[in-house]
């Protein structure tokens, strides 16, 4: 199977070293620019296939439901905070609507690419939400596109808030559709069905963005509790998203 036999003995890389060097330089450029050339090329190729207007109506309904949940959460939060201190200013949030033009929601790479880039004002670290709640954070931008690391990615680690028991936890992506919630307290009274939102203590996310619901709990560890979280926003079906330009 591994005997050496090839059709050609053409060693072009020995004859044309400069070609190899030029290709290598080009690839280093691609690597350093984080593939922005390819992403922009993909933007133009995929443009005719972007989802149409009719999907916007379906998305709008889901967004309304999401806003209702968020509104209730904000009211509660507002009351609680007003009891403690008087709020001087609220977070300044600006929205940008975008279409998902590439989606990698399986395998190792959990990312989506959006059709809005640095020319539209998208910046690294912006929050991306879809119908249901949080999807992820912008990790990289090119002129026309922005790449979003999903909360399911193994690279994603976010501070979250369990509303019922008023406790902070860490949401860690595992590379599948259900990220894991880690509570560093064995006594935390977490239950299946508990609602998870972004933590008021988080420095990465604005507070009270809906994230998911506890699906199952693992209590086998001695020092901490872990729970499987079912996300409210489903990245594998969402075509329209909102990019939040937040100053936390």
């Amino acid at each position, binding site marked *: 199977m591994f005997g050496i036999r090839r059709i050609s003995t053409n060693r072009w890389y020995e004859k044309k070293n400069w070609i190899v060097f030029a290709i290598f330089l080009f690839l280093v450029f691609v690597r350093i620019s984080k593939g922005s050339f390819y992403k922009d090329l993909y933007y133009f190729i*995929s443009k005719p296939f972007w989802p149409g207007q009719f999907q916007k109506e379906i998305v709008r309904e889901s967004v309304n439901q999401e806003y209702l949940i968020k509104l209730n959460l904000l009211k509660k939060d507002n009351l609680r905070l007003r009891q403690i201190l008087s709020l001087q200013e609220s977070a300044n949030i600006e929205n940008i609507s975008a279409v998902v033009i590439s989606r990698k929601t399986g395998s190792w790479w959990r990312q989506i690419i959006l059709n809005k880039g640095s020319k539209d004002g998208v910046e690294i670290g912006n929050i991306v939400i879809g119908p249901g709640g949080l999807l992820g954070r912008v990790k990289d931008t090119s002129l026309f596109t922005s790449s979003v690391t999903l909360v399911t990615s193994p690279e994603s680690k976010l501070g979250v808030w369990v509303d019922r028991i008023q406790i902070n936890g860490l949401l860690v992506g595992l590379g599948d559709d259900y990220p894991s919630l880690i509570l560093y307290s064995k006594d935390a009274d977490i239950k299946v069905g508990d609602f998870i939102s972004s933590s008021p203590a988080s420095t990465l996310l604005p507070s009270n963005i809906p994230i998911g619901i506890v699906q199952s709990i693992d209590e086998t560890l001695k020092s901490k509790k872990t729970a499987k979280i079912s996300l409210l926003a489903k990245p594998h079906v969402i075509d329209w998203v909102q990019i939040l330009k937040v100053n936390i």
Partner: protein
Amino acid sequence: MNKFFSKKLSIVSFIFIPIIFLWHPNWIGFLGVQPYWPLFWLLPWSMINGSINGLIFGLFLGLILDSLTLDDSFTQIPGLIFCGFLFGRIKFHSDILVGHFRYGLICSFGSFLCGSLYFLQILFRNFTDSNFLILIPSFKNILAEVFLTGFFAPFFCSQLLRMFKFSRRKLQ
């Protein structure tokens, strides 16, 4: 123009790998996982041009695909370099039918290798954290990818091999 395309077919098809990698067509997936696209191109290229060519283009593919994924801490380069080198040492089989199915096995093995190397990087990076949580989804990812890559390889690899041979013949 046509002459250029028929001559440089392998390079033209190389450019399309990142596009397919980004496209990520769901209807071809299994459990949300896609076949490992670069191997479909790397196998015929390495079989025709030998180990060193395979190794070099494994590196090139790795560089491009790494730049398209957001995981800065992990790389696909080692797996693709190793596959490129290994594929270059594989002989053609005289029986066309057996040859076709052999592509499936070889690509499955390559996909397993690349997947495992990538998984080991994730495991090493998260060693201090709760790495056990990542085991099951990772095994699922590797197995689904191995299955899909092996399933589609006979079709894609034999077509690409035919195209590369055809363009080489035109060159001579």
